[in-house]
């Protein structure tokens, strides 16, 4: 994850409390989603950014996951994400996200 983004994730978590923060991802693939999710929960796996070794355990979802879709206005969701939902491998992304959440999320 981009270093600037890691810095902002860290600052916001400190400001509002990690339990009040949710991270939403838009990555195009399961693997990249998993890496981003791992970064905001267990710390930067590449050990390059401010989140290296920082286990925030934030709640994290991909925008395409049913849990999130259920909370969003269907018309808006369809307009903004509908097409990518067709293009992306949603089940694979969900599976990857589930694994990360089960392992590292602290606030579910």
């Amino acid at each position, binding site marked *: 994850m981009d270093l600037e983004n890691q810095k902002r994730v860290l600052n916001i978590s400190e400001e509002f409390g990690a339990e009040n923060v949710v991270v939403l991802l838009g990555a195009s*693939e399961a693997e*990249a989603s998993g890496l981003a999710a791992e970064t905001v929960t267990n710390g930067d796996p*590449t050990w*390059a950014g401010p989140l290296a070794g920082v286990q925030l355990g934030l709640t994290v979802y991909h925008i395409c996951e049913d849990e999130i879709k259920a909370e969003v206005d269907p018309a808006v969701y369809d307009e903004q994400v509908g*097409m990518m939902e*067709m*293009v992306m491998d949603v089940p694979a992304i969900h599976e990857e996200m589930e694994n990360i959440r089960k392992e590292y999320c602290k606030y579910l």
Partner: protein
Amino acid sequence: MKGYPVIKGASYTLAATPDMVIYNGTTQTTERVVNPSSEYLVELPKHLRSYEDVVSYIPNQVYIGNATYEDLAATEFPYYDKKWNDAKEDGKFGCILPEDEFYGIMHICDVFELVLLENGFAAEIKEKLAKREWFTDEQLESLLKNNADETELQRLVTEEHSEGLYIGEKLVGVVKRAHDVDVNLSAHVMLENLVSKASNVVSLIELKKKNNFDPASVEYVIDCCEEACGDMNQRGGGNFAKAAAEIAGYPNATGSDVRGFCAGPAHAMLHAAALVKAGTFKNVVVTAGGCTAKLGMNGKDHVKKGLPILEDCIAGFSVLVSADDGIHPQVRTDIVGRHTISTGSAPQKVIGSLVGDPLKAAGLKITEIDKYAPELQNPDITKPAGAGDVPEANYKMIAALAVMNKDLDRAGIADFVKQHGMPGWAPTQGHIPSGVPYLGQLMDDCKSGKVQKAMIIGKGSLFLGRMTNLFDGVSFVVQANDHQVGGGSATAKKEVKICKTANYYGTKIAFASEGSEHGEDNIDLAVELAGKKGIEAIVSTGETAHKEMEAALADGTAQAAVTMHYPFPIGVSTVGKVITPARGKAMYIANTTGTSDTDRVAALVKNAIAGIIAAKADGVENPTVGIANIDGARACEKALKQLKANGFDITFAESARADGGVEMRGNDLLLGTADVMVMDSLTGNLMMKLFSSYTTGGQYEAMGYGYGPGIGEGYDKLVMIVSRASGAPVIAGAMEYAANLVANDWKKIADETYAAAHAAGLDDILKSSAPAKAEAEEEEEDVPMPAKEVVTAAIPGIEVMDIDNAVKALWKEGIYAEGGMGCTGPIVQISEANKDKAVAILTKAGYIG
């Protein structure tokens, strides 16, 4: 302005720069700052590819044009562990070059003494680069200036903030900072900019070399890379375009830079197409070099997964956009997609604005575009980095849009992706993948008829500049040429009806139409007129016109060619055919261009023979020959008469003037007294223009059959010349003339006629065509003048230069004579009583025939 702008050429180049990955890629430079002892930095060098591996990498071979996207599609993914069997450094569209030579090119591109190379290295590179024949001697010499030894280079790196240039561990050069304080001129920025410039230069050079056009014809160059040049007072001051074009040798170009992140090239293509469409410029080049920053950008993932570092090349590309030539693919400047400020960032909105909206406005279905070229990033690079297969994702989105628009059934998505898409092969150099890597292959696809319409899509992430959160993109349709040059916007290919009942049905003539002064309409009309006679004209235009014409002649596609200029060898000259005004009779003018011989008299004699050949091959059974009354006519007459006396079949015409003779006066030209009018080719050329355009006032050659075929001994190509001022009827006339020559087996007639001339002693006759003069010169003695008498008789037919000698020859025999100028040329005057004797003397001495 007629027609759509065309894509006339494209070049794609790569410089393999493994050491720049380590020292200049931002992933690596950042890592050295935040985590200098990281395992990645230790592992990285082991994952760098050899130059051979870079060359044989299939996506790279597709990029430079040695393999196609279809070859890549047939390759099992991933690509990094496979090699292209027929891999070469040089490709149809460009080349791959090694790091050391690239450093040398950076040195050549540097005009502020910022790049220093190690002395020995510089000399070595000079030799290597000289072999490419890319640079002038002066540019190559500059490589030996402004260099240093290794100790000094090392000092510059450690003490002066210079950026090192490495080959492996060895420091072979540096880029110095251009200012001590200004960060915009720091060594880091200067290196980035010089790399961009150097890779841009390589592509611009390959563009002109691989596409055979005159770089002096390029008026404007647009750079669309992602770098910025300028000092602290104008950070993005710019004009990489002009800087690169200067080094690459485009002397008449100015230019500017267009920026739009990864969408830059697509924006620049629109700029170029609009400039050409508006008629502002005829030839515009869109060009970009690559960037060091993105080298090894996804390296961490590649190393982690045991892959080689695949982002190890600095890329470049150039595209020539020109006025419609009736051949090359056209940029539909009226089918353009735009991501607007209000479009938003939702993927379907983005793809809708770039694909759905413009096609809908043009009345096209999404499925009517044969190939889409969105960003063509190589998935071998992006997939292991978790960025997915970018082109494939785009194809799926386009397919999904087609489903939403009901242009496609949902079940057809996978097929759509396969049929309308292609796997990505472009290096992830930011702007490089922006749809444009397909333009080279698109030229081939349009030529072969595989693709009628394609769409080029560029997308840009503006938010990376922290100025806006907006996304961006533009797109445009490219179509196979509609052959409607002159017709404006077009929807269907214009049919030239070829009359099947006409005499010449089936005759194919290659026509290089480049250079006409009367525009494309004139060409179209000429083709139509020829078509009515059954002749099929294969028209080529633009800089490659001659090449295509030659190819059509060589492979037999065409039996003859018509062109506006042609480099005939000495010994070949053209026989024109005009309509004479007095009786509307056709007349052959021998000759009208070219040089049949460097000796004037020999040239006239050979012109007469060529004229006879052309007239016979055109169907005149027994052509009469007259010699225009010009300098050398008498000697020519003499030689021809000798040929005839020796058995060469020639029928002389008789002047229509009262005194007759073989010498033709101006009156005879207008009358067409002789079938074949012999004259030198300069005079003939003048006559052609007079005879072709006297009815129009001069500028438009409306009558006759043009300057005719090049005829010479052993010359077996049938190339007809017309003028840039030739109007459609003359061009069509030239095609008809050619068709006749083909039908009558001109080559056989030429061979037979030359053989007969030789049998009649042509060579000896030409050798002795000016003997009188030579002998006379030897007799430079004082001849006493006989008693003067009244001279009323005249002997014509003596060369003006020989008059004095002829007079003296007569004096020597006791005959008083005077030289003079009669109404048909020089004469020797004698008394009536002496005339017969004088004729006999002059004939014997060789002054008259």
